[in-house]
């Protein structure tokens, strides 16, 4: 099947659950994971006579994201009702923004392999989440948990700028990273804090017109998104190749079977009857308010990345890893104030600190060793007192358990201080050469690789404490 004559076109609607303390339109706890139906009130239950009131934090978070993405902030935005019946939608409508969303336009730069790519944002709007339905859990009944009903969401609608599942992956990762940097969401996909609907179509390469699209609903993991898109692209190509036509549909992806299938017709035929929400006045923002939010924006992921490569001279790989999460970047920047060996600092964080925290399910902010102590650890290696490998292998674990012990002290008690006493080392070198006359001869005849053998013998004789740099110099001098 000649799939490669088609180009894939994807637009994404990402739903971000905001990390506000209370819900979008009432004071209920908005946390994840409470006992079912405990974070509720007459308002979130849609009891007769209740009215919504806007959570100001939701607005602030929307503006924060909009500014980070370079969107135009609508100083006046309005709410609308989206009407449909469902058991987990207590009011029979969802409060959303249809006509005048809070943010319009903007873009997010993503990296796909070596390539940079701009994904344009169509708009961002505020809305509320529905409750959670659990079907088939309890015999013929469905269970409803309304803890999530009314939790604030931002929906980020992209232009159809993505061309592959890989790009979708990169875009979602970048968006997840951004919302976490901004502190507006935990970005936790397993808990549903980040979900997406994918609009997928294909068209012959070179064509400028868009093909008929299908919408795959509610993908709550990047892996599923990837599989769903790959399946869907193939399905559309097969359909077209066999003379068929793609019909606009809303699809569900079943992770168990790996295929997409249309939602039932009735659900698909929703007419949401949007109209202005009469219970909420327009959201009117002062220009000064927007400027204040802008002033308080944290450094953004790409700004941090550029700083790491440009100011600190780190390789792209290191900068990527260190800037992935804001706390990691902050950890590096703070450590960099205590040491001038930025590369060593980066290595230490990437190879030791991060794995240490990951193994323990610990946030990097909780890592017990101070930046000063870590800088002393780096200095120990830089000054040649301890071999790099020995320091990583033996000193780091002890330091992590006794964060206040000076690294030098640990090195001494573990007998890891390297000997650079030339007199002593010269004697050892001479002994090794005298004990291995054959190898010496072969070396002199050109088998230069044997230098490693001699090094090893000397290190062994010194019980690992010889400074390899000094030994190397001595060996080369004696061997000629």
């Amino acid at each position, binding site marked *: 099947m000649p799939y490669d004559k088609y180009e894939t076109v994807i637009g994404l609607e990402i739903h971000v659950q905001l990390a506000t303390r209370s819900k979008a339109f009432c004071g209920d706890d908005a946390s994840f994971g409470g006992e079912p139906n405990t974070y509720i009130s007459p308002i979130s239950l849609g009891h007769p006579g209740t009215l919504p009131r806007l959570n100001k934090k939701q607005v602030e978070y929307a503006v924060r994201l909009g500014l980070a993405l370079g969107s135009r902030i609508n100083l006046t935005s309005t709410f609308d009702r989206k009407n449909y019946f469902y058991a987990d939608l207590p009011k029979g409508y969802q409060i959303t923004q249809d006509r005048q969303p809070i943010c319009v336009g903007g873009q997010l730069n993503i990296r796909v392999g070596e390539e940079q790519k701009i994904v344009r944002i169509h708009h961002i709007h505020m809305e509320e989440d529905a409750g959670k339905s659990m079907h088939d859990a309890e015999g013929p009944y469905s269970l409803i948990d309304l803890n999530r009903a009314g939790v604030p969401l931002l929906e980020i609608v992209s232009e159809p700028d993505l061309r592959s599942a890989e790009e979708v992956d990169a875009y979602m990762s970048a968006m997840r990273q951004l919302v976490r940097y901004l502190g507006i969401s935990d970005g936790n996909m397993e808990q549903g804090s980040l979900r997406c609907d994918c609009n997928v179509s294909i068209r012959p390469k070179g064509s400028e017109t868009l093909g008929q699209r299908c919408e795959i609903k509610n993908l709550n993991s990047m892996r599923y998104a990837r599989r769903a898109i790959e399946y869907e692209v193939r399905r559309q190509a097969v359909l077209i190749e066999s003379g068929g036509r793609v019909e606009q549909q809303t699809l569900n992806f079943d992770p168990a079977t790996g295929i997409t299938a249309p939602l039932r017709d009735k659900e698909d035929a929703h007419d949401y009857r949007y109209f202005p929400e009469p*219970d909420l006045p327009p959201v009117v923002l002062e220009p000064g308010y927007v400027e204040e939010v802008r002033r308080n924006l944290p450094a953004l992921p790409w700004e941090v990345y550029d700083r790491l490569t440009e100011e600190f001279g780190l390789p792209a790989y290191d900068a990527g890893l260190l800037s992935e999460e804001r706390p990691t970047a902050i950890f590096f920047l703070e450590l960099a104030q205590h040491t001038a060996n930025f590369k060593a600092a980066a290595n230490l964080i990437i190879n030791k600190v991060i794995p240490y925290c990951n193994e323990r399910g610990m946030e990097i902010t909780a890592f017990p060793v101070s930046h000063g102590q870590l800088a002393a650890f780096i200095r120990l290696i830089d000054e040649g007192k301890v071999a790099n490998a020995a320091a990583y292998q033996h000193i780091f674990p002890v330091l992590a358990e006794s964060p206040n012990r000076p690294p030098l002290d640990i090195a001494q008690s573990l007998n890891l201080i390297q000997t650079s006493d030339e007199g002593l080392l010269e004697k050892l070198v001479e002994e090794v050469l005298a004990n291995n006359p054959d190898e010496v001869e072969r070396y002199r005849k050109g088998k230069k690789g044997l230098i490693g053998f001699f090094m090893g013998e000397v290190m062994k004789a010194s019980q690992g404490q010889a400074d390899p740099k000094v030994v190397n110099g001595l060996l080369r001098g004696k061997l000629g």
Partner: protein
Amino acid sequence: MPKYTTLSQVQQAIRSGAESCESLVQYYLGRIEASRALNAYVEVYAEEALARARELDAQYREKPEAAGRLHGMVLSHKDVICYKDHRVSAGSKILEGFTSLFTATALERLLAEGAILIGRTNCDEFAMGSTNETSYFGPVKNAADPTKVPGGSSGGSAVAVQADTCLASLGSDTGGSVRQPAAFCGVVGFKPTYGRISRYGLLAYGSSFDQIGPLTHSVEDAALLLEIMAGPDEYDSTASSREVPAYSRQLDFGGKARLAYFNTALEHPSLDPGIRQACDGLIGRLRAEGHTVEGVDFEYLDYIIPAYYVLTTAEASSNLSRYDGIRYGYRSPDAGNLMSTYKRSRTEGFGTEAKRRIMLGTFVLSAGYYDAYYAKAQKVRRLIRGKTEAIFKSYDFILMPAAPGPAWNLGEKMDEPVAMYLADIFTVQANMAGIPALALPVGAHPGGLPVGLQFMAPKFEEGKLLAFGRYLEALLPGSA
């Protein structure tokens, strides 16, 4: 004649020792019993009201100076206003068995000033009706002539006051539901500016029109009740934060007023000659007193009703979605799955008029019809608002009949919904424009039924309007 027509009379009697809260409640309970046949109440809080009266009496004996401003106020409330731990059913079967978990803000404020709630009054189902005949609990009868309707939708409240079963009642007014029954029953009905009183705890019909309003024997009491209920509420974002004047202490109207009436209204083919006569009589009287009363052109009168019914039914169709048989209220015993729960519960739970308006509203919001109906009606609303405001540039008040005729026969218009809708022609303008309007009894129709006329004022000018209303009460003896 009612025993008391103002709270100040009641409080005078309490101070003199002739009356106590308990004796008042006993009196009104007796009146309720005597007028059972009028069907004004759906629930009487007899024991509770007596207990509260005794408690208030005890407090008063202890510390008379600490009594609330509404000490001695025996009040009823329309069955669309929530009272914690009490049923609220909006005159509908669909709320069967439902108990509210909170008290409406307006009611809460009255209770805090010592009001005693004596019962919940009958009304049209979800306040949809002009005769109180759409109530699940049966029609209310006009105390002036039990073969006549009391008006609606706050018919129970109007009759409760008319029949002297309480001193005042809280109604709600979406298109005249306080003023028209007040006029039919010969009591004072007042609809404040939209947003003047919090709607929290008022079951929504047309959210951008609904407003709670008092029905009383006197303008004085309306002013006092308004003063206490009005003001911002963190639970209603559409409640105005504008300062609340001391209406009850600013009831002296001095100087000369400028009033406009619409030629199109007084010459309207639907206007009953007896009402016309009452208007002309009042106009002559006012002119004789030196006020200016002039006819102005208002070419939109016949557009008001169509636009109003498009907008309110649209909002209602969404507002009534929450009554779905899932979480509270009536659920059909024959429901077998989600869809049949919706269909059967709503089919069996809503009456004809509510269903008619839900369907109308659903239709006008449907894809393809929105622009032709909803969007156009919004434009009409803006025009009417603009034109009304323009009139207030030259006039203090607009004088208008409250209804085209006096109370008609029970059952007379039940089969003619459009004729019924058209009877709202004079009251709807105030809701379309969001302005305050006062219905005052001005005398008797040739056939003996009460006649009420209506006065409208610019937004938030209820102070001026109420003062003028009090002036009229004095000018037209026998009106109150």
